[in-house]
């Protein structure tokens, strides 16, 4: 009886100890409040690659709505592109002209001093029926690069301090893209292990 009582006592003490430890862990309120009730997919890494094959298919796209400046958009904003012409692979049309391709604004780089231009990096292009890992899916649009002017000017003015430093305040151009700009994305249909070959 005493033994049973002893085991019970040890058990209670252990559980109490565990709960004290658990209460010390800071929980992420943000996750609790906004994410726990959402259906979230696990991002699949791309580890079954096989780069033996050199086949590459060019996909020409154009943005649907023009972006006039990097200041008009935000990161993770959905954007739409349109396929400009039928895309063929081995004599078959794999993507039809005018197909709408959803994508996202991945990263925005604001224009900076020394003429450094702004940049918009688009990513997450989603083509129906095509494995996203087989697409070189980043496209960067850059503004006017004025650093080509700034750096030589800065060096030329080095002998007249502080005039060279004033060139720091020349800012780079804004990043913009309109529907006339052709965006090229590349599809590599065979860049995956044979047992997971794409059906096209």
């Amino acid at each position, binding site marked *: 009886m005493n033994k049973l009582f002893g085991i019970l006592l040890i058990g209670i003490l252990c559980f109490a100890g565990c709960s004290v430890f658990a209460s010390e*862990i800071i929980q992420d309120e*943000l996750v609790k409040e906004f994410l*726990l009730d*959402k259906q979230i997919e696990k*991002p699949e890494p791309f580890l079954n690659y096989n*780069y033996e094959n050199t086949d590459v298919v060019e996909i020409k796209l154009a943005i649907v709505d023009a972006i006039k400046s990097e200041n008009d958009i935000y990161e993770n904003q959905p954007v739409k592109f349109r396929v400009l012409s039928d895309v063929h692979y081995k004599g078959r049309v794999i993507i039809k002209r005018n197909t709408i391709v959803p994508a996202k604004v*991945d990263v925005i*780089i604001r224009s*900076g001093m020394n003429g450094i231009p702004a940049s918009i990096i688009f990513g997450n292009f989603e083509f129906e029926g095509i494995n996203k890992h087989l697409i070189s899916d980043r496209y960067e649009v850059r503004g006017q690069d004025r650093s*080509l002017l700034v750096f030589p000017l800065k060096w030329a003015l080095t002998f007249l301090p502080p005039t060279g430093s004033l060139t720091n305040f020349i800012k780079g151009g804004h990043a913009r893209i309109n529907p006339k700009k052709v965006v090229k994305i590349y599809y590599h249909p065979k860049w995956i292990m044979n047992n997971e070959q794409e059906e096209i």
Partner: protein
Amino acid sequence: MIKKWILLLAVVFLAIPAFGADNNEIVQEQTVQNKIDDIGTKLLNANKIQKRIMFVYDKADKKSLLKLDTKHTSRRVFLYDGAYKFTENDDEIAAFLAREIVIAAKSFDEAFKGGLNSLEIAASPKKYEVIADKLAVDLMVNAGYNPLGLITYINKTVPQRRYDFISNKNLASKRLAFIYEYIYNKYPYFLVNNEYIENEHYQNFLLNSQSNRRLLMQKIKSGSTEKVKYE
């Protein structure tokens, strides 16, 4: 004669441990080099980066102040012992390498075969620091690493400055907040299924980022798309 033999034996016995120590050090360096080669190359392959970048482990604790930093131009990623000693797992090594890969890969694009890009990164390190952090998260996820490793690594290794408006570096707390927001928006899976929640360094990040996470909460609640002014 006996004295000479004793002297010879003594010299031989004293020399053996010294060679042994050297050998151990070389083996240790080779092990680290192989590890960073494997992780670095996995990051390159899994992200389809068609640029030749190599990885170098250097025992030197600190770069010489007089030596020109060539990481933007030489397309090599240097992992110094001073940085390596902070890493606890492969996620954190991948975090360090992924950031450097982003910068090295940029030195291949645009004018003068990437020369101009390298110059711009060197002229504006503050801006590219945050870009490298964000893109490193993508590289890590594509290669199967947990991006929260980047948070713990920066939390351990980057000191908190007083101000950043006249500095060429961002406040570490700001960088961590931007990374957290990027992971929240793009890879929330890692926050919901958080393998780092009991990690002391991640807990320390949660403790120190309370005010910044509150700002992010306000942004999410209001549905705003404005850039948050993190502290």
